[in-house]
Structure formats: C-alpha cells, structure tokens
C-alpha cells in the first residue's frame, strides 16, 4: 500500500515537528485552560443553569481550540516554503490530505480529552458513566470538523486575511456537525441511552463520510495550480 505509506509519512513528519517544538499543543492546552476560567466567570455558581448549557459550552471550547489548531495545519508549509514541495510530490495528493487529517484528528482529540477532564474537575461533573457514549459522539463530531477544517485550512493558507476567512468559511458549513454533536452530547450527559440520539449519530456518520470524501476528491484541486 504505497498510498497508506505516503499518508503515514505526512503524519510522521508533522508529529515529529510537533513533538520537537510542542508549539501548537502547548498553546492549545493553555488556551483550553483559559476558556474554562472564562466560562466560570461568565456562568457563576448557578449549578442548574450550568447543567443545561454544559454541552454547548463544551463544544464551544472544542470549536475554538479546533479553529486555532486546524488553522495552523499548513502554516508550517507556508512559512518554510514547503508548499511547492507538497505540490510537486508525485502521485495522488489525497494521501497528503489524509495524512494532514489524521494529524489534526490526533491533535484535536488530545486537546478535547484534556478539556473534558478539566471540565469534569472544575465544574464537578461526573462524566464517568457517560464516557463510552461521549467518546463516540466526540469522535464522530471531531472527524467531521477536522475533515472540512483540513480542506479549508489548505484553501486559506495561501490567501490574505486567512485568520478571518478560515472561521468564516468553516463555521456555517459545520452547522450540521455542531447541532448533531451538541444535541447528542446533551443526551449522553443526561444519561440517556445512545438509542435516543440514534438519528443524530446517523447524521454525524453521514456527514463524516460526505466530508472526508469531498476532501479526498477536491484536495488535488487546491494543491496544484
């Protein structure tokens, strides 16, 4: 499988860079911590209100940190003039897309797990019994977010005002994923069985399939001129 190998090389390259500098990861974890402080200041001690807004807040945190992390996907390539290297890489470019997507997924899941743990500690939420369901919902949502996020990050990497354009393009497209995950997370945290949110899970799964397929098919056009 040469295709898988080429995708893996991209993942390995990005992980090595990230492992050496830990630039993005450190900044994102610190950012998540700050978010928790902000939420605490905004909400105050009202526990009842907290329970009803918790899923939304959690996803707000995931999205804000996701936007920051995803937006940086191709920054390294641009700043170090490796863009042409990617463009000139032989063969199917979708391997590069899948590699970048896998790297982003790993990074986002790491940050999300940390944020979730911090949430449980600071807001006294017992997420233990909901953990398997929560993992499924968060995983499905993150795939969708990262799939389009990676594609749009490549699209905006070479454009001026990219910090602005990236979220402006990404957020409206991500509405189905956001609605689905927030609703499903809400149900899971309230202790409802996964069957009660089956239609949301199906929507998320369908969205993930569509988004990843679009990314694989169109990434070529973004990369080569």
């Amino acid at each position, binding site marked *: 499988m040469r295709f898988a190998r080429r995708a893996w090389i991209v993942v390995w390259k990005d992980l090595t860079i990230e492992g050496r500098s830990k630039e993005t990861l450190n900044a994102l974890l610190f950012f998540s911590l700050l978010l928790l402080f902000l939420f605490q200041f905004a909400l105050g001690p009202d526990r009842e209100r907290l329970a009803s807004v918790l899923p939304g807040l959690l996803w707000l945190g995931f999205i804000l940190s996701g936007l920051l992390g995803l937006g940086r996907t191709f920054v390294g390539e641009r700043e170090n003039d490796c863009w042409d290297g990617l463009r000139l890489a032989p063969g199917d470019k979708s391997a590069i897309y899948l590699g970048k997507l896998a790297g982003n997924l790993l990074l986002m899941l790491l940050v999300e797990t940390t944020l979730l743990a911090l949430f449980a500690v600071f807001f006294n939420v017992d997420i233990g019994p909901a953990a398997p369901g929560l993992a499924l919902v968060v995983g499905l949502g993150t795939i969708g977010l990262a799939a389009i996020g990676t594609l749009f990050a490549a699209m905006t990497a070479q454009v001026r005002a990219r910090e602005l354009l990236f979220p402006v393009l990404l957020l409206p497209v991500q509405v189905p994923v956001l609605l689905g995950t927030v609703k499903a997370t809400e149900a899971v945290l309230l202790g409802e069985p996964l069957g009660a949110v089956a239609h949301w899970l199906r929507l998320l799964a*369908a969205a993930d399939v569509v988004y990843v397929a679009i990314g*694989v098919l169109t990434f070529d056009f973004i990369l080569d001129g």
Partner: protein
Amino acid sequence: MNRNAKFIAGGGVIAAALAYMIYAGVTQSAVYFITPSELRAAPVSGKAYRLGGIVVPGSVQWNPASLELAFTLSDGRGSVPVRHRGTPPDLFGEGRGAVVEGNWSREGHFTASLIMAKHSEDYKAPRGTSGAGYQDLIRTLEKDGSSR
C-alpha cells in the same frame, strides 16, 4: 488509482451517504415540541420547553390594560394552563394551534416567554371549506410533529 475511477467511486460514496440521509430524514420521527399530555406526564420546573397544542375554545382571558394573557393548551388528552405577558400574534385564537416557549413554574402553570401561532400548510379561498376544525388542527400539529 485511476483519476476518473476515483471520482466515480467518491461521487458514489457521497451520493449514497446523502441519499441515506434524505431517506432517514423523511422517515424520521422527531419531536419539535412536546404536547400538553407529555408535559403533564413529567413536568420539570425551571426546565425550558417548547409546548405545542390547540388553544382550548373559551379559555382565553386577555387583559389589554396589563397585557396579561392566560389560556389553556390542549392536545385532546391533556391540557396545560399557560400564562404570558404581552400581545399575542394575529393568528393566535381559540381553536387554533399555537406553540409556546417558556418553562413550567412551580405554581402549576406554564409561563410562556414567546407565543407563536402555528398555521397549517393548507391555504383556503373564501368559499372553500370554512375554518379548519378542531380535529383538523390536531392532525396538522401531530403531522408536523411525527412525520415529514
């Protein structure tokens, strides 16, 4: 992989996922608002609800001076007293459908912060059938809530 083969396969996957979504979407039964009998079964005070039903004929009490509105919403099986402060929309009326947003108060009534009139998708000419009946409206409400 052949480029064209990739596009055909990818397009097929996308089309299949979307077709499945549309199929599931059309046949899905989802709850957009709860009905009075559902609220009666397990009311949680303080929790925000969207409640939909028919305004029971003869139940509307409207005080234009204090802008206080009280009426009863029913789905034929259960009924809930609703209180609201403000002017109701034009289409709001006895025997018609309405959806209210608000919460269940401890005093045993529903405090609505927003009242919305729900009209059916059937448009009527003056000499057509006169005014939709109670059953018709219940059907509209239930149809919206259970199918399509």
